[in-house]
């Protein structure tokens, strides 16, 4: 079954006198358990698409069904509930709460979800162990390295057991070695059955995914599956 089903969505911004068509009649399905990369240069509309997929924003026209539920014209509070229960965000700049320690950061979605404190603590510890940060739980973000911060963010995204994990340039602020480690972690999460949507403009990052959707000028330019064989993938990359 589709986790995400988008039909003919458009997003138009009004900038002063001018109308900007960030997305034009985009249709897209993503199944449970997929590992998808959304690629495109800046200004292509991929951020807009990500915001809509993440229920941070609603389309101007068109239909968006999430787990079979129409979310295209939900109000703020219902969207917040979907984001809380069904979507795990991982951002380029980590976006942790600076004054809270790692454990509290991971607990936060559970607090907003109304989970009792003992269960909350247990789940958060579990998620932090999952990303190998059990020993850093009581550190604040500024006491952690970039890679560790991103792991905390991933733990926060995982802790509610969401339907999708939405990662926006997750390696953009990391050196390449740490970036590889984070990508390996996504690979592992995907192996455990998580649905992952990766937004990036870097080809080599996108190649970790099993399906690449390329966006240009507000439309889907190409939507293709990547062969999981390492050789084939690099061949394809050079062929494109």
């Amino acid at each position: 079954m589709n986790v995400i089903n988008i039909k003919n969505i458009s997003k138009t911004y009004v900038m002063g006198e001018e109308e900007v068509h960030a997305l034009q009649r985009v249709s897209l399905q993503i199944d449970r358990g997929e590992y998808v990369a959304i690629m495109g240069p800046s200004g292509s509309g991929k951020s807009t698409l990500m915001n809509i997929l993440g229920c941070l924003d609603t389309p101007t026209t068109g239909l968006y069904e999430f787990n079979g539920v129409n979310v295209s014209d939900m109000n703020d509070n219902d969207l917040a509930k979907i984001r809380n229960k069904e979507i795990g965000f991982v951002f380029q700049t980590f976006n942790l709460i600076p004054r809270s320690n790692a454990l509290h950061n991971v607990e936060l979605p559970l607090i907003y979800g109304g989970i009792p404190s003992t269960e909350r603590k247990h789940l958060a510890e579990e998620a932090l162990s999952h990303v190998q940060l059990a020993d850093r739980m009581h550190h604040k973000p500024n006491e952690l390295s970039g890679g560790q911060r991103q792991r905390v963010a991933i733990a926060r995204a995982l802790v509610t057991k969401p339907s999708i994990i939405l990662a926006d340039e997750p390696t953009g602020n990391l050196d390449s070695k740490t970036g590889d480690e984070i990508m390996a972690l996504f690979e592992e999460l995907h192996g455990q059955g998580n649905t992952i949507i990766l937004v990036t403009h870097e080809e080599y990052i996108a190649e970790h995914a099993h399906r690449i959707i390329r966006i240009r000028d507000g439309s889907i330019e190409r939507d293709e599956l990547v062969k999981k064989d390492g050789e084939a993938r690099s061949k394809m990359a050079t062929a494109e």
Partner: protein
Amino acid sequence: MKVSDFTYEVKEGMAISFQAIRANKMRSVLTTLGIVIGIVSVTLMGTAIEGLNRGFSDSVAKLGADVLYVQKWPWFAGRDWWKYRNRKDIKMADYKALARQATMFQAATPATGTLKTVKYQNNSSTGVWIIGSNEKYLEIGGSNMDYGRFFSQAEADGGRPVCVIGSEIADNLFPHATPIGKNLKVGSYTFRVVGVLAKQGSFLGMFSLDNRVIIPMQAFLQRFGARHGIDIDVKVSNIKQMDDAKEELRGIMRKVRHVAPGAEDDFAINQQELFIQTFNTIGIVVAGIGLFITALSLFVGAIGIMNIMFVSVTERTKEIGIRKAIGARRRVILLQFLIEAASLSLIGGVIGIIISYPLSLLVNQILPTSMPVSVVVISIVISLIVGVISGFLPANRASKMDPVDALRYE
């Protein structure tokens, strides 16, 4: 909405606001200054009014509500003082005529006073109020004997050199012995102590009622000047007939003092009521000024909090975006900033109460009072309400932020 959700949200909101306030200690304390001043003025005003009321009812009880005071001066003379100054003094002859003719009175006593130094051996008290009166003094003045006796009618009529002293004089001059039967010096004259009055305290904190010596009127006039004008204190037999009694008194006084028909009285008949009216006016003025200062400083304080909350919301735009992205609803964000504003204001309230407490002890030096618990409770409630009101606009702005814009904010 589940109750438990709300509880978590409130707890989280409190945790966040304490972190935020702790992170900006100086700013937070400065912000609360207006609230601090407001709460200090609320509590001090409450304390002062409490003190005025308490002190006043004490003092009125001491004076007695059923006594008329025939005097040269009205109690609240205003700007006409020169008119009253030229009046004839009230004399013993007036008293005698009045005591003979009046019918609606239980007791009357002439009264006059002067300040003298009182000595016994090496001890002395300066500035003692020496009162000339008669044997009815106790009945009219509302005071009681501690021990010994009051002087008798015979002693009063004969102008005997006897005296009754206030408790403060007894403590000062006779710290280790009984004063009864001792001869003390009032100015240069000797008086024998026959009794000590029970302690009365002070009149509205202004002067002590225990620092006095009462001697027979005749003795007073002989030794301290026959030309002294006197007052006549009259206790009415029925308090419900105050006005009739006052009219009778007035008629007698006009006749005795030969006031022409149609001419103004050349004396005043004072009574508690005047005092109560004036007092109430003072109370209203104090409350009015207090209320004005309080309202003004709370208003300034509220604006200060609102301002700093707007700053706080703007500073934390990104954080608001993050919280919204991971599922914080509008209500949660609203609550978080309302709690922060209320906490700031509450801190101001508590600081205000802490500052007011020693100040209320200072007020207690002047008025018999203490900070009422109700005032503390009211202050806390007021500061919470001010916090919530002033936090509402900034919190509302935060709660309505668009998550996409907020996340993009640097």
